[in-house]
C-alpha cells in the first residue's frame, strides 16, 4: 500500500510540475521521462537480474529506427510506429540474447557491446535509408499521434507521461510478481535457481526481451517526440548512460531510473554551464556515489530507512 501511494504521489508531482515549471524545464521533464523508461528497461536486466549489458543502445536504436523509419519512409501512423518500434526492441533483444546469453559476466558485457557496435556500424553503412551519422529529421506531419501534435510541448509531455505511467506500472507489477522473484533469484544465485527447476537461459532470455521492449518503446518514443533519429543514439554512449542512470538512482528500485535520469540530466546541464570539463564533474559525482552510496540513492534509502521500497 505504501509503495502504491508513493508511486501515485510521484505521478501527481510530475503532473503538477508540468504546470509549474518554466518551459525549458517542463520540456526537459518530457525527455527525462522517456530516458527513465529506457533506464527502467536496463534496470530490469541489470538491477533486478544481474545481466550487465553494454549493448542496450542497440535496443534503444531498434525502437528509434523501427518507428522513425516507418513514419518517415512508409508514412505509417505514429501510434502503429510506436508499437512496432517497441516490438523491434523486443525482437532485437531476442536475437542478441539467443547468442549473448550463452556467455556470462565479462564475456556477456563484451558480446553485447560487440552486437551494439555491429548495429551502430550497420546504421552508418546503410545511410541511404537510415540517414547514417547525420540522421533524419522527422517532419511535423510525421509526428501526428492519434490527433496530438507532438511538435508542441504540452501534447509531447502528456504522451511521455502516459508512456512512463505504463512502464512504471508494468515495472512495478513485474517486480512484485512471481517472475520478479525469479529475476532476483537469477541475480543472487543462478545455480540454486537451476536446482529449483528454472532454466536460467530461458529465464534470462525472457528478462532480456522484456528489457528490450522497454528500451524499444523509449527509443520509438524519443524519435516521435523529439523528431530526430540518428546513428549516435546507437553508439556506446547510449549503452553507458542507462547504466549510469540506474547506478545513480538505485539499481533494483522502481523509481531509481527516474531519479537517476533526472539527476544525471541536470548534473550535465548544470556542470556544462560552469566548465567545459563537465564530464570530470560527472565522474567525480559518480566516484562519490560509489564511495558513499554504492547502492545508489534509492538503494541506500531502502537499505537504511525504507525497506519496503520496491
Amino acid at each position, binding site marked *: 500500500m505504501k509503495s502504491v501511494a508513493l508511486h501515485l504521489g510521484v505521478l501527481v508531482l510530475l503532473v503538477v510540475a508540468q504546470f509549474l515549471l*518554466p*518551459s*525549458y524545464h517542463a*520540456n*526537459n521533464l518530457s*525527455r527525462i521521462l522517456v530516458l527513465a523508461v529506457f533506464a527502467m528497461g536496463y534496470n530490469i536486466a541489470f538491477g533486478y537480474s544481474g545481466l550487465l549489458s553494454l549493448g542496450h543502445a542497440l535496443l534503444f536504436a531498434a525502437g528509434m529506427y523501427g518507428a522513425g523509419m516507418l513514419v518517415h519512409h512508409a508514412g505509417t501512423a505514429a501510434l502503429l510506429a510506436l508499437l512496432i518500434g517497441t516490438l523491434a526492441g523486443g525482437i532485437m533483444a531476442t536475437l542478441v540474447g539467443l547468442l549473448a546469453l550463452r556467455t556470462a559476466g565479462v564475456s556477456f558485457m563484451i558480446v553485447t557491446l560487440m552486437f551494439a*557496435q555491429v548495429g551502430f*556500424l550497420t546504421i*552508418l*553503412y546503410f*545511410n*541511404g535509408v537510415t*540517414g*547514417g*551519422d*547525420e*540522421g*533524419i*529529421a*522527422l*517532419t*511535423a506531419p510525421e509526428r501526428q499521434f492519434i490527433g496530438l501534435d507532438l*511538435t*508542441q*510541448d504540452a501534447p509531447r509531455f502528456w504522451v511521455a507521461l502516459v508512456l512512463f505511467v505504463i512502464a512504471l506500472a508494468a515495472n512495478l507489477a513485474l517486480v512484485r510478481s512471481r517472475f520478479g522473484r525469479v529475476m532476483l533469484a537469477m541475480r543472487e544465485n543462478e545455480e540454486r535457481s537451476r536446482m529449483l527447476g528454472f532454466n536460467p537461459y530461458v529465464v534470462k532470455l525472457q528478462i532480456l526481451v522484456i528489457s528490450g521492449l522497454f528500451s524499444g518503446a523509449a527509443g520509438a518514443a524519443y524519435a516521435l517526440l*523529439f*523528431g*530526430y533519429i*540518428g*546513428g*549516435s*543514439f546507437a553508439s556506446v*554512449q547510449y549503452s553507458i548512460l542507462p547504466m549510469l542512470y540506474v547506478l545513480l538512482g538505485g539499481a533494483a528500485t522502481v523509481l531509481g531510473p527516474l531519479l537517476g535520469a533526472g539527476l544525471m540530466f541536470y548534473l*550535465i*546541464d548544470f556542470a*556544462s*554551464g560552469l566548465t*567545459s570539463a*563537465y*564530464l570530470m564533474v560527472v565522474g567525480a559525482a559518480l566516484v562519490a556515489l560509489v564511495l558513499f552510496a554504492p547502492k545508489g540513492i534509492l538503494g541506500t534509502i531502502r537499505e537504511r530507512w525504507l525497506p519496503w521500497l520496491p
Partner: protein
Amino acid sequence: MTTKDRNAFAPSRRAVLAGMGAGLLATTGLVRPVMAQGAPLKLGFQLHATGIGASYGRWYQRTADAAAKMINDMGGIGGRPIELIYEDDGTDPKRGAEVVDKMANQHGCELILGTLFSHVVMGSAPRAGELKIPYLVCSEGYHVASGALNRWTLQPGITDVRSQISAMAPWVAANLGKKVTMVFPDYAFGHDHRDFFTAAMKAQGGEVIAQIAIPPTETSFTQYLPQIPAETEVLYHVMVGPGVLTFVKELGEFYGPGNGPKLFGFIDSLEAVDIATPGLEFLEGSHFWEAHNRVKPADAGEHEAAYRAAVGVDDNGASVADATDVSTYSHMFSTWETLFFIKQAMEAAGYTGPADRQKLVETMEGISDLPYGIERPQGAKVFNGKTHQVFGTQTISQVQGGKLVKVHQTSMADGAYDDAVDYTTMSF
C-alpha cells in the same frame, strides 16, 4: 510650510495629465522600441566546446567573439549591443536539441547560430522549428539546401559541401588527371564526397575508377591501399579525424617518396593541424581544397589583415599567441559572416524582439548579393533565399615547403547546382 513649499511637492494638473499620458503610452507598448534601445540582443551560440568538434569549437568561439566585438564597436545591431550566449552541445545531437531549448527558453536568445557538425544540426533543427526561432548554422553540410530541414534553418555564412566538391572537379580534371580513385570515410560525410565528386568529374569528362570506403572504426589503412588501381592519376582523399595522420604516413610508405598518383584532398582532415607535422611529409606537392586560405596569399583581399588581427591569427593561420595553435581557418569565417548577415537582416527587418522572428526570416530570404568587405572576409557571396544556402568561391592550395600556397580560385559558377527545395513555400 509656505504655499511655495507645497507647490514644490504637489504636482500640477498639467504634470499629472502628462504623466498619465506617458504611462498610457508605456503600457500600450508604443514606446517599447525606444526603451529597448541599449538593451543587449542575446544571440545563442551552439558551441562544440567538447566532443569530436572541440578543435573547431575553440576557433569558432574566438572568431564569433571577434565579430561580436567589431559589431558592437560599430554600434551594435539597430543601436543595441549584442551578447553571445554560448552553450556546449558536446558535438552531440541529443544535447544539441537540449541547448537549443535552453538558449531559447531559459536565456531568452533572439536566435541561435554557430553549429558545425551535421548530425548536431539535424538533431537540433526540429527543436528550433518547434520553437519558431531562427537557426543559422555554420556547418557546410548539404542538409539545408537538400530540403531536409525547415523554414527556420538557414546557412548564410558558408558554402555547402555539394557546391564545394563540385567546384573542385574542373580544376582537378584539367590539371591533375581524369582517372580518379576516391578514398573516403564510409559514412554520410564521405558519401557526399563520393556521390557529388563522381558526378562532377563525369561532367568534366573524367572518371572515378575506384571508390574505396574506409569504415569509421578503422585505425590502419594498409589493407585498403592495394585496392588503388595502378592506372590512377589522382587520389582523392578525405579522412576526417585523427586517422588522417596514419593514412598519409601509410600512403607514403606504400608508394615511397616521390611516387604514386597525384594527391587531392579536403583540408577538413587537417584543420587545426600543422601541415609541417612529422609524418605528413608525403603531402608535399599535393593539393587541397580550402575555403579560406590558412596561409595569407599574396593576392589576399584588402580586409584580410584586419580580419586576421581581429581574430588573433597570424599570416600562417596560427594563433598570434601560440604558433602551434593552428586555426580551423577554412571554416571559422562562417561564424563571422553569419553574425554580420544577422546584423544586416535584423536592421533591414527593423527587428525589435521575438515577435519579429518570422519577419526576420522572410527578410533573410529576400537577401541575395553579399559583396566582399570586412563583413565577408572570405569573399563575396550570393544567398539563395529559396534553398536557405549561401554560395561563394573556393580555392585550391598546394603544399609547398610544408605550407599551403594558394594556386587557384574557383568561380561561383563552378559550384552551382539546381535548387532542390523552395523553403519559401513552406509554412512557418
